[in-house]
């Protein structure tokens, strides 16, 4: 096993999570995004049963779920929360029934991953590419958030909504081994929530969120190693703690 696997995944996947978070948060998709990560569970179950690397099961199920949310969103203006909630908790339930007992905790809350070097490198490279995409497409994502009708006049279509969902789904897939299916959605939301309280402009918001994502994940992994916790809960609780500290800085008008 390559050395410092957890550290590198925490750093690069943390940065990627922080980069995509602001757009998910401003689109008011935080809860849908959180529920999305549960869909990974049946994918993990199938991988364990048929003995292939769970990463591939996770990525297939998450990308499928991203397309499903995109399709549901297109059908009505209101995000179909109830359908998403039902479907995603159902997949959580199915996953739990299928996964052997010995692997349940690890699937839900993450573990220090052991990966082959090629797979580790592929995950790290993908995390870098996805982070870069968030910055490159920031203007277009933001345009669709600030004024969808104006964005439409400027020729920005729903393709960018799908792109955002797919980037999000892939980032969730990358971090699931370390953070777990129940908590990985939270890792994309927490750095963005903290940065939102501190930043005055969108450009600073995205940069700060990316830095916080990397820093919180690395610090969480260090704490988990030191005190023998699971890495997922350590990262998430550390992030929530920092969020609470950032609350006094939130500007007025925050709902």
């Amino acid at each position, binding site marked *: 096993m390559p050395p410092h696997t957890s550290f590198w995944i925490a750093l690069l996947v943390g940065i990627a999570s922080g980069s995509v978070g602001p757009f998910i948060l*401003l689109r*008011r998709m935080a809860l849908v995004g959180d529920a999305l990560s549960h869909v990974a569970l049946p994918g993990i179950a199938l991988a364990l049963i048929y003995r292939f690397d769970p990463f591939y099961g996770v990525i297939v199920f998450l990308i499928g779920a991203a397309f499903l949310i995109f399709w549901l969103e297109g059908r009505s203006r209101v995000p179909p929360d109830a359908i998403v909630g039902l479907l995603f908790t159902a997949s959580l339930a199915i996953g739990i029934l299928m996964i052997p007992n010995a692997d349940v905790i690890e699937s839900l809350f993450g573990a220090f991953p052991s990966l082959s070097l090629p797979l580790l490198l592929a995950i790290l490279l993908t995390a870098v590419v996805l982070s870069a995409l968030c*910055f490159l497409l*920031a*203007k277009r994502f*933001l*345009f669709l*958030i*600030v*004024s*969808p*009708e*104006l964005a*439409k*006049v*400027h020729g920005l279509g729903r393709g960018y909504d799908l792109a955002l969902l797919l980037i999000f789904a892939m980032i969730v897939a990358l971090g699931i081994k370390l953070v777990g299916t129940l908590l990985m959605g939270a890792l994309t939301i927490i750095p963005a929530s903290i940065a*939102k309280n501190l*930043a*005055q*402009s*969108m*450009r*600073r*918001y995205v940069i700060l969120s990316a830095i916080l994502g990397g820093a919180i994940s690395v610090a969480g992994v260090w704490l988990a190693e030191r005190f023998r916790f699971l890495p997922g809960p350590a990262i998430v609780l550390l992030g929530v703690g920092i969020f609470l500290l950032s609350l006094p800085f*939130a*500007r007025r*008008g*925050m*709902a």
Partner: protein
Amino acid sequence: MNDDTVLSVEDLSVTMDGLPVLQKVSFTLKQGEALAVIGPNGAGKTVLFRALLGQLPHSGLVQWQRDVNIGYVPQRFSIERSAPISAMEFFLLQSPDFWRPSPAFTGQLDQELKLMGLDPGVLRKGLGELSGGETQRVLIASALLQKPSVLLLDEPTAAVDAGFEETVYALLHRVQVERGTALLLISHDLSVVYRYAQRVLCLNKSVVCQGTPVDALNPQALATLYGEAGFYHHEH
């Protein structure tokens, strides 16, 4: 289509969920002209705009001038007030480079801000911190960045505090005069229509009247448009 016609619409009809929303609407918009679209709620004014922008399936003919540059001005932003997005960044959505804008872009932006009577300090404000009047002027300035030959405005003063509607219309009038930009605007305010529009189109699913405000807005036409109750009562 004449050379000075920016937009020519013939027999435009839109059907939604099997019901007619617009029926055989025809009108033209000339260069540098201000045309006001009025009508009761549900008359199809916003649908008309969306059809003109090619965002709705429709029948009939919508013909824009060749190489026309359309500036669309929405009523408001669709974001929560706490979103950390500065006014500058809203303008940057139209810059080729979002992260490091060119001096040429910021130079043009300064001009548009001046035309709209906005202080450059407004750029540092968050979108949620702008007043209604500032928001509307920021939206118009942003549309002007495209150097449009026509501006489409859907009730430009809907979110503006009372007393400032006049300022917004005066500024639009200035754009029309100084730049020769045609204005196509939806308005509820008949006094504005009399004052700033050269022509008016009364819409209630189909065209009820059109012409200069003085000719077209006779008591009979207004009664047909807003119901037999008679006078149009303006609410605020």
